C-alpha cells in the first residue's frame, strides 16, 4: 500500500527518493494508474511523481547527438518544431498514439519505462539507434535501447535508476525514417503490430538500414533479416518483396487478444512493404 507521495523538483531529490527503495516512479501516470487500478501493477510504498523535476523536458542538439528529455510528452513529440524537423518519425508515431488527453499526459520516459512490446515510440527509437541514459544516486550509465528491454514490462533498469534522457545520433544527409502501426480501430487503439524502417537513401539505394517491429515479440525487436535483405539495395519492387518476405520469416509472434500469430506475420509482411514505399518517397 502506498504510504508516501513525493513530488521532487530536482534530479538529486528524485534520485534520493529512489535510493530509499520500494518506490514507484510516476511520470504521466497513464500506464501506472490504469494498471494499478486493474491490479496488474503493484505500487511501491512511495510514489515519486517526477513531473516537476527540472531539466528533463524537450529536445535539443548536443554535439553529434539529439537529446530527448524523459519527461517530453507525446504531445510535444507531435507538435514540437525542433523534433518535427529533425526527427519527424517521432511525430509520425505520436500522431497515431492514444488520444489527445493521453498524449498530453504520457511521456517518452514512461513509454520506455513501461516496456510494452506495443509501445509506439519504441520502434521509431530503435530505428533511430537510440541510447537510454539512466541515473541513480550512485551515478550515470548509458544502455543501447536494443539491449535495454528484457521482456514485457521488464528492462535492465534497476529500481533506483531514473531514465533521464534518450540520445539518438543526429541524422545524416539522406537519412529517412518512417513508422506505421496497425490497430483494429483507426483511433485510440493499441498496436496489433507496428513497423519502423530507417536508412540513408541515396540515388534510389538504401544503406545503414535499421528495421524494427512492435508487438510481435516479448519486446520491441530489430529486424535483422529484413535489414540484410535491404542493405545497399535499390528500393524497387523486387527489393520490397524480398524484404517483406524476410520480415515475415523472421518474426515469431504469439496469438493474443489483439491478433493471431498468423495475422501478425501477414501484417508484418504488408506493413514492411508499405513503410518501405514511404521510405522510398522520403
Amino acid at each position, binding site marked *: 500500500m502506498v504510504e508516501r507521495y513525493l513530488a521532487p523538483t530536482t534530479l538529486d531529490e528524485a534520485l534520493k527518493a529512489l535510493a530509499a527503495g520500494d518506490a514507484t516512479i510516476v511520470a504521466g501516470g497513464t500506464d501506472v494508474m*490504469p494498471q494499478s487500478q*486493474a491490479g496488474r501493477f503493484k505500487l511501491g510504498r512511495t510514489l515519486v511523481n517526477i513531473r516537476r523535476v527540472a531539466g528533463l523536458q524537450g529536445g535539443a542538439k548536443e554535439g553529434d547527438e539529439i537529446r530527448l528529455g524523459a519527461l517530453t510528452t507525446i504531445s510535444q513529440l507531435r507538435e514540437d518544431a525542433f523534433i518535427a524537423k529533425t526527427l519527424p518519425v517521432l511525430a509520425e508515431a505520436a500522431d497515431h498514439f492514444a488520444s489527445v488527453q493521453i498524449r498530453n499526459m504520457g511521456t517518452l520516459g514512461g513509454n520506455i519505462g513501461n516496456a510494452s512490446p506495443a509501445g509506439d515510440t519504441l520502434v521509431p527509437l530503435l530505428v533511430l539507434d537510440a541510447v537510454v541514459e539512466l541515473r541513480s544516486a550512485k551515478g550515470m550509465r548509458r544502455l543501447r535501447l536494443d539491449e535495454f528491454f528484457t521482456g514485457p514490462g521488464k528492462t535492465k533498469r534497476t529500481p533506483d535508476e531514473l531514465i533521464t534522457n534518450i540520445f539518438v545520433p543526429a541524422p545524416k544527409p539522406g537519412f529517412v525514417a518512417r513508422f506505421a502501426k*496497425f490497430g*483494429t*480501430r*483507426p*483511433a*485510440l*487503439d*493499441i498496436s496489433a503490430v507496428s513497423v519502423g524502417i530507417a536508412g540513408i537513401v541515396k540515388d534510389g539505394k538504401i544503406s545503414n538500414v535499421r528495421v524494427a517491429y512492435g508487438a510481435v515479440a516479448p519486446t520491441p525487436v530489430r529486424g535483422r533479416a529484413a535489414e540484410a535483405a535491404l542493405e545497399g539495395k535499390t528500393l524497387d519492387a523486387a527489393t520490397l518483396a524480398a524484404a517483406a518476405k524476410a520480415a515475415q520469416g523472421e518474426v515469431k509472434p504469439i496469438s493474443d*487478444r489483439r*491478433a*493471431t500469430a*498468423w*495475422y501478425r506475420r*501477414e*501484417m508484418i509482411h*504488408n*506493413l514492411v*512493404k*508499405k513503410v518501405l514505399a514511404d521510405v522510398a518517397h522520403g
Partner: protein
Amino acid sequence: MNSPIVGKAVPQVTALEKIQGRAIYTGDLKQPGMLHAKVLRGPYPHARIVRIDTSQAVALPGVKAVVTGADTPTRLWGVAHKQQRILATGKVRFAGEEVAAVAAISEDIARDALDLIEIEYEELPALLDPARALEAEAPQVHDGHDNRVKEIRIARGDVEAGFAAADLVHEATYELHSQYPGYMEPMATLASVDGNGRLTVWTSTQSVFLARARLAEALDRPVSSIRVIQAMVGGGFGGKIVEERSSLIAAFLATRVNRPVRLVNNRLEDFQSGCFSVPCRLWLKMGMTKDGTITAKDVRILANSGAYAGLAPEVMLVTAMRSDNMHRLENVRSAADLVYTNTMPRGAFRGFGGTQMAFALNSHLSVMADKLGLDPFEVHRRNAIRAGETSVHGWQFGSTGLRECLDQVQAGIGWEAKRRRPKDTGVRQRGLGMAAAMHVSGNRTLGNWDGSTVVLRVNEDGRAFIASGESDMGQGANTMMAQICADELGIPLSHVTVLPPDTDTSPFALGSLASRVTINGGKAVLQAAQQAKTQILDAASGLLGCPADDLEIDQGVVRSRTKSNATAALPQVCRYHVFRHGGEGILVRATYDPPTKMMDADHYGNIAPGYSFAAQAVEVEVDTETGQVTLLNSCLADDCGKAINPMAVHGQTNGAAVQAIGWALYEHLQFEDGRLANGNFADYTMPTADSVPHLQASIVESNEPNGPLGAKGASETAILPGAPAIANAIEDAIGVRITELPITPEKILAGLRAKREGGHA
C-alpha cells in the same frame, strides 16, 4: 397539421442541465450518514463456495456491514425463471458473479475490506461453449436441470413445398456475438430506509415500476414498502430494464445498516455485471424464385443465455420470428434453443434480438439477389409487407414505410451510379451494401397490458405538470411528452414540466422498453391534454360567456374564434377553475392501452399497435493489405410514423448507426478461461469519431393510425440494418463474405487469402 411545436427540431428539455453539468445522476446524490458499497465477485466461471470468512473485513475500522449470500432473503427472483438470490449462494455460475458486498464509510475502505474477505472455492468444470451445453456429459450450470433454458418451435405453411417451388435455395450459418450497452453512465443506486422502515431507492433505470417489482421480489417485502425514484439516466440501451442486479445489492445493504448506501459501478464492474446482448449461432435456409419472391424460410438458432435466464428467452423469440413479419411470407419455420453457460447473463439490448436475425437475413438476401442477378433493393420491395395486410404471424400493419425507407437510402447513397462504376482493383477497394429491417412499437408481452397512464395537472399559472412512469434515459421521452402536451394545450414548450418517475407518485407504468413510450405514452399524454383542454375551455366559457366550442387556446391565451375581444389569459382561466364554488385545480388522467393481442401459445397474435421499419445503405472501403474496413458513407432511413421531434429522431438514428458499426467491426468481448479479459474501453473498442463517416439520417413518416399524431417508435429499428449492410458492402468490395461477427481485419485478410487460394481457407 401545422404545429409550432410538434414536428419541430427542438433541443431536448433535459439538454440545458446536462450541458451545464448540472443534471443530477445517481452517482451525484449524497445523503447524511451515507455509506459506500463495493461488491466482491467470484473469480471462477464455475465453482462451489466452500467457506467464506468475513471476520477480518468486518473488523476493519469504517466497515459497517459485510454481507454474503447466506444473509440474503431465500426468495428467488427473476423475470420468468425465479433462480437468483441477491448474492450467490452455494456456487458461482459465472466469473464476476456477486458473492459478497461491503458497506463502509468510504469507497476506499469498502474496497480494502473486499481484500480481507476470505473465500475458499472448489473449482468445477465450466461450461463455456454453448454448442456443448446440450451434450449429456456437459457440466450443469443449474444443478439438477439440463442446460436448456427454452426451446421455441414455430412452423407455418409448408416449408418443404416452399423450397420445392424455389429457383434458388441458399443456406448458411452465422455467428452473432454479444454487445455491451456502453452507456456513458455505469449503473448507480442510492438506497435508504426511513424511520418507518420504508425503503427509498434512487437508481439509474429504464423502468421504476419494474425495478420496484424486482426489489420487492428479491428483498421479499411488499411492493408498497418500496419507493423507486428515477434519477437522471445516462443511457440504458436495454441494460437497465429488469435484469439489473447492483441496485438489489445496494438496497439490501441499506436494509441491513439502516443508513443510506450508495453503490456506483466503475467501468470494469459495469462490464462484469452489465447486461450484454444474447449471442447466437444461426443457421438459415431460404428459397427464392427467379423474380426474387421468397418461397420459404427455415431457421435454426442456438442462443447463449449465460448463467441465468433473465429476458433472454424473450430476446431469442424475437430473433426466431420477428423478421418474418416484414415480408409477405407464407412458409416459415423456426427451431430455436436457448442454453445456459458459465458466462455472464445476457438479455435485453437495443433491438432486442432483432440485430441477430437482421444480420443473417440481409446477408442471405444479398447473396441470393447476387446469384439471381437481382438488385437487393428490388428483392426487399418485391416481398415487402404493406399497410392493411396481416403477416404470417398475425401482425396487422396500420402503416409501413418500408418502401419509402428503401427509396430514400437507395437514392441517398447514389446506389445506381455507384453500382455501375468499375470495380476498384488497387489496395483499397470500395463496395456498396444495403439492409432493411423491422421492429415493434410496443409489445403486449409482460402480461395482458401494454398501456400507459398519464396524470396531467394544469397549475394556476396555466403551466402543466406531467406525471408518468415512463422513463427518459436520454432518448428524449420527456421532450416528446412535453411537445405533445404543449401542442395540444396551446402553451409554450417551456411551460410543461415532466416530473421524474417515482413509484410513490407516478401512475403505474411499464417503462422504456420495446420502443413503446412514444406510441403508448405519447398517446396517453395526448388524451390527457385533450381532457384538460376541454376543462379549460368549459371554464373559460363560463368566464367569457361564449360557448366552449367557439373557444381555442393559442400561445397561452383562450380566445373566441368569432368575438375578437373575448379573450382570457390561461392563468386567469386556471385560477377561475379553482376559485369558484365546487372548483378544483385541473387534474386529469388518461390511460391508453393499445388495441393489440398477445401471442397465443403458438406465437400468433398482433402484439404491437405499430410496427416500424428502417433501411440503410453504406459504402465501405476495404484496405486489402491490412484488412481494415472504413465506412465512407452511410444513409439510414427510419420509419417512425411521425417525427414528434426530428432532432431527437436524428440523434437516435445516428447513434444507432454508430452502435451498429461498433457491433459489426470493433466491439468484441474476449474471455480467458471464462473470465472477461477486456472489460475496459481501451480493449473493448467502441467506435470513436475517426470510425464514423458522414452519416445521413432520413425520416420516413408513414402516419401510424394507432400512434399519437401518427407517431411510432424510433431508435431500436435503426440499429438493425447497419451490420449486415456493412457485411454486404464488404462482399461487394472484395468478394469475401463474412458470416461471423465482428468483422475483424484479420477475418478480411483470411478471407482474401482463401479467395486467392481458391476457397481453401
